């Protein structure tokens, strides 16, 4: 019963995303096949819901099957026509040579065994997600609640049926609720398993993207190990298979910053610009994920994007003309997403950060450091990851801060330290004391943390930095 609506529900956005990525790549394809579909699904779903949202509020296109299909049809046509016209002029895609497998057989077998063990848990949790009711607070108070209201009313609404006031959760982008509305519309009714299944798909997409990011730089065994480590973290697995939006945000963040790393590592100017354009697209979409996407992470990503572009220009890796065009395209995409959404928030008086304001009387907040330490090191959330992570950062600091890995390291440090400051010195300390906001913040950054850990581990084991980027095409 679930198969057909789910297949259509995921396939259409994936096709939209794939076509968009293909267009953004233009004449230089850089994404591996599975990577492009995984990223395409993420991009396609967020973009499609963005368009569906504005089609509803501006043009009155309802959230019905025909309304959604109209949106998808428009997107597929708008993106499909250029794809058809361009097909013959785009050079065929040749995948670059990937790093050879250098790990001993025993290590590879151990990684496979660990992977199988983790896969069992991931699959069982997915099944549980499909077969049990929504459980956690934010699911029934925000993500699923709004999705269900949109589904029942066939339209976007800021208010809930039982109150004329606009609740705080309405300030969040409607992407996740609308995705559920879309799936429920296809299914013909609101079914918990169907509307919650999308979270698992986002989680699998994240694992694939982490794998492929690492695979460009590491042998297969180590790339697999990174994805396995991420999936094995208890709190990450719970989030990946629950109807919350933090893994959804994290996949956008990870893709945004990982693509900057690839741009830096590319020895071919065309490939570097292609990675940069896709990163710009992901950064734009970050603003339409959660409030933290806009308030906390977008400025950091925009800064890293600018620094990456400047670095490439200084290295003379790309021509100024190519860089300017790429930056203009990325800037244009960012404005195309950001301006309408911010304008909507302004005209409806919606807050820009989370519902809770920050008290600007900075003073030391008692017990926060203890609470953070307990959450990071003395609970079951992250396994033994953090001693490993911080230990590797200290031991392999040259790789962490003097190679392209610095992009990832910087992206971790800035939001982490900003949040720590807020928890240690402002009224937001309750988010750390109750272990709510702090843990969620780590979920957002976890794919980046695991990627850094895996890269530095490889560096330590082989006593050399990651292999240089190889743009040599297979023949």
């Amino acid at each position, binding site marked *: 019963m679930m198969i057909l609506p789910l297949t259509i529900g995921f396939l259409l956005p994936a096709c939209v995303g794939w076509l968009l990525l293909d267009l953004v790549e233009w004449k230089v394809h850089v994404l591996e096949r599975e990577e492009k579909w995984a990223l395409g699904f993420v991009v396609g779903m967020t973009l499609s819901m963005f368009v569906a949202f504005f089609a509803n509020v501006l043009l009155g296109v309802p959230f019905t099957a025909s309304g959604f299909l109209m949106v998808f049809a428009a997107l597929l046509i708008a993106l499909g026509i250029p794809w058809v016209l361009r097909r013959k002029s785009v050079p065929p895609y040749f995948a670059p040579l990937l790093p050879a497998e250098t790990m001993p057989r025993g290590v590879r077998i151990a990684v496979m065994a660990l992977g199988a063990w983790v896969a069992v848990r991931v699959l069982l949790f997915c099944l549980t997600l499909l077969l049990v009711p929504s459980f956690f607070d934010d699911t029934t108070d925000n993500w*699923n609640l709004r999705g269900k209201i949109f589904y029942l009313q066939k339209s976007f609404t800021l208010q809930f049926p*039982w109150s004329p006031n606009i609740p705080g959760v309405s300030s969040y982008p409607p992407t996740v609720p609308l995705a559920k509305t879309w799936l429920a519309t296809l299914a013909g009714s609101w079914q918990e398993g169907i509307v919650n299944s999308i979270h698992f798909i986002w989680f699998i997409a994240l694992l694939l993207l982490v794998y492929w990011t690492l695979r460009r730089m590491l042998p297969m065994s180590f790339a697999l190990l990174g994805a396995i480590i991420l999936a094995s973290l208890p709190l990450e697995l719970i989030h990946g298979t629950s109807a919350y939006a933090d893994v959804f945000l994290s996949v956008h963040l990870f893709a945004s910053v990982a693509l900057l790393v690839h741009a830096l590592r590319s020895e071919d100017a065309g490939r570097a610009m292609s990675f940069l354009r896709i990163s710009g697209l992901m950064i734009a979409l970050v603003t339409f994920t959660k409030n933290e996407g806009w308030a906390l992470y977008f400025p950091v990503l925009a800064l890293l994007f600018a620094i990456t572009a400047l670095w490439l220009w200084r290295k003379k890796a790309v021509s100024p003309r190519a860089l300017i065009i790429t930056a203009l395209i990325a800037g244009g995409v960012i404005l195309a997403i950001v301006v309408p959404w911010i304008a909507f928030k302004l005209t409806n008086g919606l807050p820009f950060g989370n519902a809770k304001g920050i008290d600007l009387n900075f003073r030391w907040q008692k017990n926060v450091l203890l609470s953070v330490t307990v959450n990071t090191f003395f609970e079951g959330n992250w396994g033994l990851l953090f001693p490993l992570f911080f230990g590797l950062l200290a031991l392999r600091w040259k790789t962490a801060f003097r190679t392209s890995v610095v992009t990832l390291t910087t992206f971790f440090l800035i939001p982490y330290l900003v949040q720590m400051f807020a928890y240690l010195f402002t009224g937001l300390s309750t988010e750390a004391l109750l272990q709510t906001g702090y843990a969620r913040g780590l979920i957002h950054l976890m794919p980046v943390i695991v990627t850094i850990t895996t890269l530095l581990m490889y560096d330590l084991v082989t006593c050399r930095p990651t292999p240089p980027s190889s743009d040599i095409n297979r023949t």
Partner: protein
Amino acid sequence: MRLLPRIILSALFLTVPAAAFAMTEAIWDFRQESLPGEWRVSNLDLPTMTSDGLHVTAKDKPGSMLTQLSLPHATEVISIHFVSNGQIDARLFWHEHVRSEDQYTELNITIPNGESTLDLNVDAYAEWDRHTDSIGLAFPQGTDLLLQEIRFVHWNALEKIAEVWRSFWKFDTMSPISINFVWGPVVEYNPLGTVKLFTELPPRGRSGNWIFFFALLAIAVVITLYRYVAVPRMGMKQFGHPLVLFLLAFGGLWVLYDIRMGLELLSYAKNDYDLYISQPQGRKIFRNYQNFNDIMEQSAPYLKDGVHFGLLMARDAPVDSMVRYFALPAIMELPTEPNNDLRYWLMFRRNDVTVDAENRLSVGGVPWSPPGRIVTQFDPNSFLFEVTP
């Protein structure tokens, strides 16, 4: 294994006293002819020895009884056996050596009505002094009970190590806070602590992560000594880079930790299958919400689009936001007074709501609705009530 090492190990095992593996307890039995310990009574009626125990009463005012304690072993658990005439909120108090002589530390205890044994894992409290030299009980006015037995229980180092291993493998269950954190392995040092693990929040034991950190430290020290002492000075062969060796050892510990947490996560899935997924409607239990989701599923055919219904829920079961979500498109209201306009009423864990003789919903004896009928009784205190037109 070769014969000689096997003989040596067996000999060692046989020569270690059995007491090394045994729990030790001192038992004060108040049903004997002589009173165990010398007790100083304050404000209580004079306790009397009976064949059923020490009869303690406090007719006019609260009081206490205190005794010196001098045991040959430390105390981790205290078990007190009572027969009480009524539930009593009492206090156990003791003297910590670090405090002055007239200062005592107190622990609130609740003595149930009837015969009961209170097993107190006092070692779980940082303020507990394992070698306390005086201990007492304080009772409120109206106390009437028989104190039958006090046991002071102690486990030796080997038993504690074994309990750490057992408690390491005790799993928590999925709860609403699991989206923010999971406790992970929590270790206890006695069986009572293990039994009570995760029944109180936060759990009283120590994080099991400490074991891994100590192990990593020990491994680091061994590898450092091996590389910088054993290899250069004693001529031992170097088997690899020290950091790589450490990473391999770390990997082994990582796998152990992952097995432990992985099994806990699998237990969550198993619980969901056993109690919810595999059960028929009417018998589904979903995590800490018990039969709440089952109730919503059974109510769904009645709570349709456009229907307004009232929810009356127990104060300690604030399910309103969840009811609102699951009941949509029916609209939930939270009446605080009688209401004649609602077609349905959903009771959740309310033992003060009944249907009176005139078939009206009655809250604390006051009619709140027009006449109707109970559509479905979910459990003794939860039902769906429909107002009949």
